[in-house]
């Protein structure tokens, strides 16, 4: 078969996870839109995007951790701690601008991620255990910080609460921030040395070490990214939902992992991309928002999400296995 035959191009395109996901998204959108034409209205699209912005930020952090063959279970707790901290700072020092609060959130998140990363890289504790420990510690610290109280909407400044909703060129700040994060990390994972090193470590740590990749550094970096993005997400969360409570973002780690799985990120490390993760997040958002349209009660949301994750997982695995079987056949000649 010639190299550029249209059928082979199509096959190649279908092997790309991103395109498959986009196709699935369209397939999903057609019946929903037929049923309820408003679903594709600018207003509704805007709402779905805004709903998913925070998840996409956190999922990108999770993406790097999974890419390096780890997992970060502590994201929900980091969001809670930073969100609470930002809410309390806003309450006690109303003059501090929201932008500074975002930076404070990122800094706190960075430190929490640093602790995770150091324990994993230098303590040689498996990521799942490290973050299983810190998910408890950080959540506990949130309670210690807040002494069990809440920060409610009227205790925060309008400028902070209004920040995610403020628009620039018709698009909310929240979305702008998500776009910037996506763009920065797309560049990071495609075109920077460290970004490529994460793929190398996740794909084959031994080989990566032989070509001079500093494994410990990469392991710390992925948790730094995840922690910092969670810090950003925490600061935005408190503002968007206009309250900071101790239980906020409980179980959010599972949503982030789900977005990654949908986006084709491989659990054994080394495979996946930012665009896939973003599409995975979007997919989750569309499904969740579409439930009322098909007259399904929100109570079924969890089940539908679980089924989608399982199907996506099975598809990922099957396509991986087919690919490696093909490679093996090629090698045998």
């Amino acid at each position, binding site marked *: 078969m010639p190299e550029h035959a249209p059928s082979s191009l199509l096959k190649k395109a279908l092997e790309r996870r991103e395109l498959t996901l986009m196709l699935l998204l369209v397939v999903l959108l057609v019946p929903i839109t037929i049923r309820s034409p408003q679903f594709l209205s600018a207003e509704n699209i805007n709402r779905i995007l805004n709903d998913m912005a925070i998840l996409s930020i956190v999922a990108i952090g999770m993406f790097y951790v999974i890419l390096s063959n780890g997992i970060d279970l502590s994201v929900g707790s980091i969001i809670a701690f930073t969100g609470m901290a930002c809410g309390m700072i806003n309450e006690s020092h109303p003059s501090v601008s929201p932008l500074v609060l975002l930076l404070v959130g990122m800094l706190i998140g960075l430190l929490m991620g640093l602790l995770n990363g150091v*324990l994993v890289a230098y*303590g040689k*504790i498996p990521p799942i255990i490290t973050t299983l420990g810190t*998910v408890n*510690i950080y959540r506990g610290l949130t309670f210690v910080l807040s002494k069990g109280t809440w920060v409610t909407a009227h205790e925060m400044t309008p400028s902070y609460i209004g920040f995610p909703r403020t628009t620039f060129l018709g698009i909310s700040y929240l979305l702008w921030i998500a776009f910037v994060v996506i763009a920065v990390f797309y560049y990071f994972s495609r075109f920077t040395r460290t970004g490529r090193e994460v793929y190398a470590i996740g794909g084959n740590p031994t080989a990566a070490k032989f070509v001079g990749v500093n494994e410990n550094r990469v392991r710390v970096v992925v948790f730094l990214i995840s922690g910092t993005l969670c810090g950003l997400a925490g600061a935005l969360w408190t503002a968007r939902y206009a309250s900071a409570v101790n239980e906020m973002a409980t179980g959010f780690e599972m949503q982030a992992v789900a977005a990654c799985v949908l986006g084709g990120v491989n659990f054994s490390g080394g495979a996946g991309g930012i665009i896939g993760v973003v599409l995975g997040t979007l997919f989750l958002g569309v499904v969740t928002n579409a439930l009322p349209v098909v007259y399904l009660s929100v109570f079924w949301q*969890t089940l539908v999400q*679980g*089924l989608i994750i399982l199907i996506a997982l*099975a598809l990922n*695995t099957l396509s991986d296995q087919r690919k490696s079987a093909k490679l093996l056949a090629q090698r045998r000649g």
Partner: protein
Amino acid sequence: MAEKQDFIAKSRLINEMSIKNRLIEFFTKWEVILVIIFTLMFVFFTNRTPYFLDWFNLMNATFQFSEKAIMALPMIFIIMCGDIDISIASIIALCAYAVGNAAQGGASIPSLLLISLLVGTLAGLFNGVMITGLNMPAIAVTLATQSIYRGISIGLLGDQARTSFPEGFGVFGQEFIPNTIIPYEFVLYLALMLLFAFILHKTTYGRRLYAIGNSAEAARFSGVNVKLTRIINFTITGFFCGLTAMLLASRILSVRSNIATGWDLEIITLVVLGGVSITGGKGTVFGVFIGSLLVGYLKFGMGLLKFSGTLMTIVIGSLLIIAVLLPRLLDLYKANRKLRLQAQH
């Protein structure tokens, strides 16, 4: 070459002779460290409050952790093989839903038990088959089934609760053995603990789990049916989720869709704290037994001293990290000592 062998023989002799070495070897075992921590904790709480070292209180406190401790037992098998199951809390919720619903329909206690065990076993079997059949990572599959099982009970139950149970249903989860202060639940736990210790340490099946955990490939080449063994582990775990759901429903006599939320991580914590390696192949039932009691009584004691529940989560989270970090440091220490000893001779 001969020199080297001579040297090895010599150092081995030195190692065997030295009582000091043996003591160090003994006291750096994780199970022994756990017992020491456990004893210290008992002394500390006894010193601080007169209500701690009271047999009735100590026995009554077991109600708070028996169910989780029971779930930690089959989880040892799963983690021993290098797998993980984060769907157990959801399976428990699903079973509890089935029990609550059947009870409302007027089912008898034996049939409730049967239903619960059946639902749990099937859910566990599904996990196992999905994981081994398509060769998918356990954490990813059970993440999905976590949502699926929980989603079924949320979907069916919504914000409702099931609270009508047959006469005498509360016995298993609330009552004591007649004329004693020992709860049924705790006795059941102790019996199961011994059973699991026997299976893990004294039967071929148990030894196979260690083999798989150390190297699944090597185990397969020596004739172990790795896939089947892993499926059995998940199925057993599902079965015990069914049992736990019965105990839990019997204890609190109310079933909601958010029942047992967060138990997955708590139970995995018990197992890892007990010294079972998350990568598999290492650990004992005794370690997990002490680990479970340690966490259970730590919570009880801190509650007596009016520490908030949040401080406990910090303590338990730290304990978990220390539990994994400490053996690594001890190993490093041991290796250094050996090097030094060899250098001396």
